[in-house]
């Protein structure tokens, strides 16, 4: 237990002192165990997507044929395209609504603000299943048209996704706004900036990391949502998670693993792109904002 805790300054400015684990073996062990429990199943699933066996229980050699099958399965492909379409559109809408909600709560005082804030945060805590049932009942009761041509047929799923993901964007953006120095705004105005220029030149660049983090959250939430989508999707509007679920009900073939691996890769790629879009110095701040705000 007598681990030597070394104080080490991080190279980049802005970061506080970082504790090195030193010789705390138990701490390292704990970390290793956590990683194993969290990630081993995913690795196993990915590995078995290359398994040359229909039953997929025992390893019978390497193959990529299930990826071929997956990409040649029109139903699976359609589900993938649906998922991506929904994710992109709902992210875009969540970003706008979430950022505007955060700005409004930060900037203005109005009657019922506290109640509004509470109501807005509800989707963060309401169980998915309740959300899904509520959405289903809601769309049925208002008679949302169900037989629209693609992509309008996805509109109810997109609306449901926006409803549960925009609060995440709002929380992340608000966390960042809390660190906004009002004197920046005043300085810009003093230097001749109009409200519009302040928004474009000062506020948005400042919010960029939070907007990227928020968009990433919204995108991944939408892409892998099963429960809410399950309740709101019709027979013609199947998304990848819903499709994978229906496939699993017949049998767990490597094709399911392949489809799941594709879903994971999409998420990882989105994350990587988002991190790349930010300058290194801003990454840390965005992470802090994301952690301080919504734990998805």
């Amino acid at each position: 237990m007598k681990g030597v805790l070394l104080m080490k300054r991080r190279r980049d400015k802005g970061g506080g002192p970082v504790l090195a684990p030193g010789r705390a073996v138990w701490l390292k062990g704990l970390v290793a165990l956590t990683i194993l429990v969290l990630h081993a199943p995913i690795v196993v699933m990915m590995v078995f997507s290359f398994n040359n066996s229909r039953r997929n229980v025992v390893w019978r050699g390497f193959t990529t044929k299930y990826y071929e099958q997956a990409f040649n399965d029109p139903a699976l492909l359609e589900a993938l395209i649906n998922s991506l379409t929904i994710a992109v559109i709902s992210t875009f809408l969540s970003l706008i609504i979430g950022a505007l909600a955060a700005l409004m709560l930060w900037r203005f005082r109005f009657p019922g603000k506290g109640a509004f804030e509470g109501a807005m945060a509800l989707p963060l805590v309401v169980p998915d299943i309740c959300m899904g049932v509520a959405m289903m009942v809601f769309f049925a009761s208002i008679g949302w048209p169900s037989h629209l041509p693609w992509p309008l047929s996805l509109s109810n799923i997109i609306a449901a996704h926006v409803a549960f993901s925009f609060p995440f964007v709002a929380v992340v953006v608000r966390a960042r706004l809390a660190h906004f120095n009002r004197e920046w705004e005043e300085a810009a105005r003093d230097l001749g900036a109009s409200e519009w220029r302040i928004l474009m030149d000062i506020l948005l660049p400042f919010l960029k990391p939070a907007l990227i983090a928020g968009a990433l959250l919204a995108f991944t939430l939408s892409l892998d949502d099963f429960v809410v989508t399950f309740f709101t999707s019709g027979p013609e509007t199947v998304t990848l998670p819903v499709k994978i679920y229906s496939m699993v009900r017949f049998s767990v073939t490597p094709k399911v693993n392949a489809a799941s691996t594709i879903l994971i890769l999409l998420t990882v790629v989105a994350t990587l792109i988002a991190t790349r879009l930010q300058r290194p110095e801003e990454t840390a701040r965005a992470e802090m904002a994301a952690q301080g705000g919504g734990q998805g």
Partner: protein
Amino acid sequence: MHASAREDAPRAVVSLRGIRRRFGRVTAVDGIDLDIREGEFFALLGPSGCGKTTLLRIIAGLERPDAGRIFIDGADMTTTAPNHRPVNMVFQSYALFPHMTVAENVAYGLRLEGLARAVIAERVREALALVRLEGLEDRRPDALSGGQRQRVALARALVKRPRVLLLDEPLSALDARLREEMRLELSALQMRLGLTFVLVTHDQDEALSMADRIAVMRNGRIEQLDEPEGLYERPRNRFVAEFIGKINFFDSILEEVDEEGLRVVLPGVGPLSLPVRCLVTERKAADLALGDALTLAIRPEKIRISRAGDHADADSDLFGGQDKADVRLTGRIAEWAYYGGISHMIVEATLPQSGEVRRISVVFQNAAKETVEAFDIGDAVVLSWPASAMIVLTS
């Protein structure tokens, strides 16, 4: 009444008339008339909450007055937005844009004017040279020291070539040494540019050392507007006298007054004659009535301190041989703060007639090492000063 609108006085670049501003139940600025002259270094000095920052923000346009009018260069700018006023501000936190480099920060105001790229580049270069920041163009604010940030903020405001530069507590975030350095630099800059500076500060040393004129504020009003020397030597009331520097007060009663001078009784000490110039308040000698309560005050550095029983110092030798020590008190050193160049002492002095003990603040020049070593806490000393070194306050 403060704005002496003499005809030969330099033109006012900023004129405030009856400015009033309330925040809820608090009146931050309570009816201020003020003329800031072309090319002067003007300071708004006062304790926190006196309304000095609000007044500065009203000039900048960041705050709207509830009543009153603001004229800049003779034009009524009361309702003009800050982005359309010919003034620029250096903020207390500097407010540098964190996502822009030094050069981008300085160029921002010019970009908004829509100037040509080459013109902007040239003026940014000039401004950075002015504040001696060449070579740091591509740094970001978080990679700068406090002093460098301060300079960027200055350059960013100066590059706009404002009619008036507003400075909101610009030195408060710097350490003591840097503050001293920037003080001299700001003064030099102001003289070189001939630009009107308006400084807000709570630090009297800052105001005294830099400003041409100072307005001392309290509770949203100007208590006194004067040159630094005037504020220090002729404070109009107890508040100003106490706020600027240290001072000792004595309550006294007026006994006799004519064109020549005043005769007062200092309780516990005795009668004193003072020349009429010691009366520094607005009330003239003719307005005073016998028996009026007056406050006599003496600055700590105008008191001579010597060892008790050491009569080598002849009265005639003191104070250039002109005045004699009209007041002479004995006491002992109770506290002593050594500042290197000067020592600040608190002497517990006994008033000769009443025997009452008063704590008197004395500043002692550490001119010779031996004299510093000669004194110690608890030592019996004699305090003396000429009556003419005192000032008379009516409040």
